[in-house]
């Protein structure tokens, strides 16, 4: 039987491998996972390696909350969505004190190795900005070929949203860096020192 999505699968595979190559060039550690349990395992390994005591999580689909919590084992986990309504100073302190931030990337951008963050609250943005380690989760099916395809989408997202709820959109390509000391490339300035991309190559719709 003919698979109508075969061409789509091939170009997706191309985008994925291009994306992985670009991430490698940008010093982003990439992991492709095919199940929830693999997701949990991968996150747990990272958290253990960095000696994580406190994690903040923002924007991930409710379906994956369990997988993330399970990975934390021992570390304090705060979901930014749950912190809404708490005093700002408290929320900021939690975000600032976290070792790791786990966030959702709406899209991947293959050619430039970028991940698209779409948030509506600065606390979510701080989850990927304040901690030294950033783990971004994204679906392999969301990977676009390049910036040229991605930027018009950004415009559309902004245009299609009401004035009171405009998205805050950021392309993130790698850990924070500077060349300001004798033009040497140094990582981990004010943003994360290391970035992990966990690419979910699995069907997130439906049950299981």
């Amino acid at each position, binding site marked *: 039987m003919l698979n109508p999505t075969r061409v789509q699968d091939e170009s997706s595979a191309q985008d994925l491998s291009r994306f992985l190559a670009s991430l490698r060039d940008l010093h982003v550690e990439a992991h492709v996972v095919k199940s929830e349990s693999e997701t949990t395992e991968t996150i747990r390994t990272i958290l253990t390696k960095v000696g994580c005591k406190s994690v903040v999580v923002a924007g991930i689909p409710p379906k994956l909350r369990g997988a993330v919590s399970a990975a934390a084992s021992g570390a304090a986990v705060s979901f*930014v969505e749950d*912190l*809404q*309504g*708490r005093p*700002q100073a408290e*929320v*900021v302190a939690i975000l*600032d004190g976290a070792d790791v931030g786990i966030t959702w990337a709406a899209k991947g951008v293959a*050619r*430039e*190795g*970028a991940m698209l963050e779409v*948030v*509506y*609250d*600065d*606390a979510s*943005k*701080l989850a990927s*900005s*304040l901690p030294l380690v950033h783990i971004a989760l994204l679906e392999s099916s969301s990977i676009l070929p390049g*910036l*040229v395809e991605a*930027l*018009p989408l*950004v*415009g*559309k997202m*902004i*245009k299609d949203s009401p*004035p*009171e709820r*405009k*998205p*805050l*959109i*950021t*392309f*993130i*390509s*790698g*850990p*924070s*860096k*500077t*060349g*300001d*000391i*004798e*033009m*040497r490339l*140094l990582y*981990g*300035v*004010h*943003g*994360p020192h290391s970035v992990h991309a966990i690419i979910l190559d699995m069907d997130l719709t439906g049950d299981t």
Partner: protein
Amino acid sequence: MTSKNNNNRQSLLTKLRRSLNDRESSDKFWNAMAKARGNRTALLEKEHIDMHAIKDSNKALKTASVADRSLVEQFANNVRENGGQVFLAKTGEEAMRYVVELSNRVGAKLIVKAKSLTSDEIEFTKELEKVGIRAVETDLGELVIQVAGETPVHLVMPAAHKSLKEITQLISGLVGKELRAEDQEILGAVRAYLRNLFLTADIGMSGANIGVAETGSIVIETNEGNGRLVTSLPKIHLVIIGMEKIVPTWSDAAYLVKGHSASATGQNMTVYVSAITKHVPLAGSAEGREFHVIILDNGRSKMRDDPWFSDALNCIRCGACMNVCPTYGIAGGHTFGYIYPGPIGIPWTAEVHGLDKATFAHLCISCGLCKEICPVDIDIPMMIAKVKEEEIAENGQLVVNDFFMASETLAKMASSTAPLSNWFLRRSATRALMESLVGVDRRRTLPAFSRRRLRPRLSSLGTGSGATGKVVFFPDIYADYNEPQLGVRAVKILLSLGYRVEVPDLRWSGMPYISYGNVAKATEVARENLDSLEKYLDEGYAVVSTEPTAVYMLREVYPKLVPGDLANKARERSFPFFGFIHERLPELELKPSFPTAEPIGFHIPCHDRSVSHGTPAISFLRGAGYRVQVVENGTCCGMAGTFGMKHGDLGYNLSMAVGDHLFRLFRESGRKLVATESSVCSTQISDGAGLKVIHPLYAVEEVAKPASKA
């Protein structure tokens, strides 16, 4: 000449002398620029980016955006509709008044700043300091120069001149702890120090790389993560954006984002490219959170309406022009700059800060590399020539510049009195006199003059059959008054290829008028030459020259000086010699004059870079059996026409300081023989590297007539 303006020129010379004396700093800065050039080239090659295609579309987009007066209003309306506040500031003072009022209203005492050259332009920090408000730079380079009390030395790398040791000293002072001179130690100290300020600041101030009118959004491109914290933690997000930065749509923004970091740092994108449309809530609360956008004029609307200077508004602040500028690379951004440094800094400074701040325009040697590297194809050299013209109108022209702008007349005189003129020019007494009276450096080798010029030598050859086409040969000065034998060789080849060759009585191409700020005279000579060429162009003649600068003038400069169909036709029909015969090279039988066992070195003249990049000349040499080794550092040899003949720092000394970096490469290459098409680059490399330098036409002793076709 008022004494105030004498001071500006004197101050420039003093700073230049200091830069030339501090060899260590100058070399370090030069190497930083070389590295920046290398990063850009590496990315263009890796990603197969065709910069020429991008230049044209970028230019069209930016020019249209700058001219569209409705964009500012559309942008402002959208910002307001989304809950933000907009202030259109006519001047820097107006902008700062708004900032102070805002700060007072919210009781702000601490402002954290992301990198914004626009805020530097209006002296943001200094103005706030006056009223007791502390504004702290959070970009590492800007923080370093803030602590040092200096202005930025480069658009993109504001502290490129600082060593690790100097940075350690400065940061140690800032954080109040003696730090080791070690990268991670510094980084850690800065991270900890600024983290506290991010968390407690009342206002976060950022610039914007792009403003998108259709959604009232700004785009900020950063690497360090400071921009993210500045725009999210503080209650107030304040943006200062130049009015020329606004483009209509997100598709337009895509082009600029793609081109900007590729050109600036050799990155596909900066680490963070943020699209901000409002100051979103923090932890669900929007209370007290405000978004303010100051749209700055400060001279920009005047530039927009100026036919010469509106081009400067197309700048996307990539800094590539200063990465390639040879004299900026020696002098550094404090000598070659005021607040905006480098080539693009010249028209910007003249227009927003004042002509008296733009005296550093005279450091430009008109190599044209800034325009060639600019991702928006901005005609920086032409604007610099206008700034020079304005500065000279106020403060007078230098005697030595007048001397060299009279080169055509001087060449006629020297030629008609040769060989006596040559004898005089060789005497050290003459050279000493020329140095003290006129300002021609006695150390510089000057070319000899020929009594018998080009045309008399061609009369025996005839004009040619014209079977394959018609050519006007344009010798300019060198192949007519100095080395007519070169012109003869070129014409012989053209005749053998079946062209009809005419050598009409043309003026010189007139480049020194541009170099020394006499745009009026340049326009005169352009008009005269174009008028003389008109009938030939109408009859289908091509214009061919052995002098790269002549082709450069016809292609790049004349169309700007005398806009219209005639100049456009001349541009399309002008060719460098080897470029013109390139396709027909296989027909020629070339016999080398020198042994081909050793490769021949090659230098690409700046004025040929945008024309043929040396490629056809190299093919010609290969056709004669030579292996060709191109020796380049990516920028000018330093001679810059007559500039390197001028006495002193703003001449020979600066010229040789630039040249040193190329001479070293040539010496290291081991090449004993070097070819280049430019008569003046030739002098520079032989004077500086002590090598034999010839025009490629002298590398072949015989060019056989093409075989007749069957």
